C-alpha cells in the first residue's frame, strides 16, 4: 500500500472514532480497524496472513477451535501407510509471529447487526469485517440410518484427524479377501477427486498386504473429476481391484445398517467388511447458525469480495461458499482467501474493490510414483467466476511414466508450499 492510502485510511478511522465518542482527536492514537477471521484452515489462515501483510494497519484476529491444524490434502496417503498424520499437522506460531492475534476458541454465535461474534466460553470479539471459513458440515439425514455416532463405526475420514486413523486401523484389521466400500457423495462436496484418489491409495496398500481384497466405489454420480485418468491409472496399477458403480447403475445409497456394515442401495444391498461413508455435505455449522447459507446449504457471496449477499460486512470463503466454477479444494480456498483479503483492505481504505484473479489446482496420487493434476485459471465475467477460455485442464491421457512420476513429486512440493504459504 502506498503512503497516501495508508494516511487516508488512518485519518478516516480516526475521524470515525472521534465522531462516535465525541472526543477530541488530538493526542489519541487512532483505533485500528478490526478484522476477525473464524476458522484457520486453507481459506482462513491465508486470509489472515495476506490481510496482515498487505494492510498492517488493520488488526487481524484469527479464531480457530483447535490448537493445531491437520491437513486433508495428502491424508489419503495415511490410509495407504505412505505417511503419518504428524506430517500433515501444523500449528499457528508462524502466524502469531507475523503479528496476528491467534485465539483458540469455538465461535458459537454471530451477531451481524451488532458486529460481534461470541466464543463457547462467552468471549466476545467485535469486528468491522468478519471472515467466516468453517469448512463443511455433514447432512446426516440424507442417508437413512447414518448418524454422527455411526461414523465411529463407519468412518467418513473427510476431516483429517482421528477419523483418518480410525479408518486406517479398520483397513489394517481387515482380512485379506475382504470388501472395502467407499460411498461417494453427490455434488457439490469437498475435494471432487478425493474419493477416487482414496480408492487408489487403499488399493496400493491392499496390493502389497491384502491382494485378494476388493474395493467397491458406490457413487451418487454418473461421472467424476479426472475420471479417464483415474480409471486408466487404477487399471494399470491395480487391475480389477477397484470397481466403480455409478449412480445410474445402482450406486446411489439410500440407507445403511452400521452394525452389519451393509449399505442399502436403490437396487441392491451391499455388505462390506470396512465401510467408508462420505456423507452429503453443506457449509460448516457456523455458517448455518449465522444464517449465511441459502436453501442449497451453501453460502452465496459476491465473487469480487466474497462478502455474503445475505449479511453485509461478513465474508465467507473456502468450502462453505458458492464460488461459481471453482471446486471445493484447498487451492481454491487459498486463492479465495487472497481475493477476500485484498477486497477487505480496499473496502476499509475506501478504495474501489480490486479486479479478482483466481486459480485452482488439484494433484492426485494414484500410486507413489503416479501423479495426475487438474488446473484452472478463473476470472470474473458478468458477476460470475468462470474459467478463462483455452486455459487449465487435466494432465494428458498419454503422458509417459516419467511425467507421471514427476507430477507425484510436484504434488508433494505443492503441499510443502501451500502449507508454508498458510503457516509461516
Amino acid at each position: 500500500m502506498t503512503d497516501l492510502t495508508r494516511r487516508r485510511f488512518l485519518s478516516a478511522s480516526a475521524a470515525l472514532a472521534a465522531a462516535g465518542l465525541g472526543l477530541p482527536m488530538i493526542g489519541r492514537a487512532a483505533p485500528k480497524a478490526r478484522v476477525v477471521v473464524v476458522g484457520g484452515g486453507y481459506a482462513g489462515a491465508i486470509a489472515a496472513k495476506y490481510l496482515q501483510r498487505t494492510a498492517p494497519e488493520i488488526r487481524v484476529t484469527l479464531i480457530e477451535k483447535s490448537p493445531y491444524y491437520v491437513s486433508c490434502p495428502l491424508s489419503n496417503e495415511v490410509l495407504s501407510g505412505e505417511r503419518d498424520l504428524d506430517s500433515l499437522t501444523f500449528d499457528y506460531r508462524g502466524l502469531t509471529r507475523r503479528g496476528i492475534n491467534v485465539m483458540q476458541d469455538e465461535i458459537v454465535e454471530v451477531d451481524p447487526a451488532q458486529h460481534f461474534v461470541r466464543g463457547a466460553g462467552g468471549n466476545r470479539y467485535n469486528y468491522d469485517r468478519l471472515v467466516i471459513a468453517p469448512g463443511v458440515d455433514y447432512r446426516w439425514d440424507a442417508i437413512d440410518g447414518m448418524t454422527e455416532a455411526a461414523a465411529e463405526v463407519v468412518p467418513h475420514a473427510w476431516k483429517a484427524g482421528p477419523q483418518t486413523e480410525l479408518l486406517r486401523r479398520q483397513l489394517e484389521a481387515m482380512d485379506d479377501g475382504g470388501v472395502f466400500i467407499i460411498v461417494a457423495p453427490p455434488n457439490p462436496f469437498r475435494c471432487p477427486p478425493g474419493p477416487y484418489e482414496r480408492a487408489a491409495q487403499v488399493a496400493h496398500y491392499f496390493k502389497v498386504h491384502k491382494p485378494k481384497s476388493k474395493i467397491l466405489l458406490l457413487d451418487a454420480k454418473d461421472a467424476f473429476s479426472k475420471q479417464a485418468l483415474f480409471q486408466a491409472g487404477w487399471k494399470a496399477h491395480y487391475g480389477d481391484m477397484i470397481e466403480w458403480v455409478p449412480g445410474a447403475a445402482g450406486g446411489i445409497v439410500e440407507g445403511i445398517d452400521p452394525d452389519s456394515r451393509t449399505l442399502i442401495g436403490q437396487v441392491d444391498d451391499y455388505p462390506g467388511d470396512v465401510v467408508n461413508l462420505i456423507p452429503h455435505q453443506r457449509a460448516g455449522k457456523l455458517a448455518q447458525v449465522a444464517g449465511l447459507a441459502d436453501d442449497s446449504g451453501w453460502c452465496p457471496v459476491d465473487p469480487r469480495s466474497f462478502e455474503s449477499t445475505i449479511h453485509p460486512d461478513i465474508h465467507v470463503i473456502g468450502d462453505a461458499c458458492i464460488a461459481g466454477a471453482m471446486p471445493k479444494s484447498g487451492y481454491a480456498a487459498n486463492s479465495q482467501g487472497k481475493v477476500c483479503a485484498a477486497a477487505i483492505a480496499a473496502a476499509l481504505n475506501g478504495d474501489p474493490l480490486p479486479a479478482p484473479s483466481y486459480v485452482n489446482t488439484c494433484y492426485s496420487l494414484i500410486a507413489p510414483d503416479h501423479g495426475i493434476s487438474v488446473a484452472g485459471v478463473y476470472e470474473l465475467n458478468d458477476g460470475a467466476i468462470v474459467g478463462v477460455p483455452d486455459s487449465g485442464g487435466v494432465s494428458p491421457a498419454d503422458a509417459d511414466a516419467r511425467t507421471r512420476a514427476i507430477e507425484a513429486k510436484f504434488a508433494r512440493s505443492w503441499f510443502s508450499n501451500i502449507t508454508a504459504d498458510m503457516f509461516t
Partner: protein
Amino acid sequence: MPRPLRTASTSSPTGRFWLAAGIAAALALGAAGAPASDVRSAPMLANTCAGCHGTDGASAGDYMPTIGGLAKGYLFEVMSDYKTGLRPSTIMGRIMRGYSDQEIWAIADFYASRPWVSTDRIGEAAAVHVGEQIHEQQCATCHEDGGRAQDDDSPRLAGQWSEYTLYALENCREQGKRCSPRKMGLRVMDLSDEELTSLADYYESQK
C-alpha cells in the same frame, strides 16, 4: 485476449525483451484511462502462484522452483514460452494460457521485485565436485559467478533446489539440439545422469 507474441522478428532474446518493454508502456497508458478495478493488479495475479511456488516465490518444496528474484525479462520469456508450448511443462502451460501478455508482464514484474531466497540446505563437497568441474569447463561462460549471475536471458541457478534444476537439465537433455539455447543443449546432451545430478547439487550449494 491478445494472441501470443512470438513471431520470427521477435524470437531473439533481446527482441523479446524490447517487445515486453513496449507492452509495459502500453499497459501503463491503458491503466491511466481505465477504472482501477478493471485491471487485475500485479499482486492480485501473482499471489495465486504462491500455492505452488511459495509466498513471494520462495519455494519451500524441493521440486518446485524458486521464482522470486529472477530477472523480469527472463520471467516474461519463460512464462510466454510455457503459454505457447515452446517450453515443455507438466502444468505451467495449462496455467499460463489463462493470462494475457500484459498480465504476464505484470506478474514478471512482481516476482522480479521479490528477494531471491536460496535454499537452506548445505552442500556436500564430495557430491558437488564433478559438477563444479563441468560447470567451469562448459557452463561458466554463460552462467557466471557459480551460477549467481543472471540477466533477462538466463536465470540464476545458485541456491535453486537441486531437484528442480535436475528436472530442468533432464528436459534439456531430452530435447538435445532443440533445447534453448542450442549451445547449452549441445553440451547437456552428452552428460550422464551422475553428471547432471552433480551439477544440480553444485548449483544449489552456491548460495
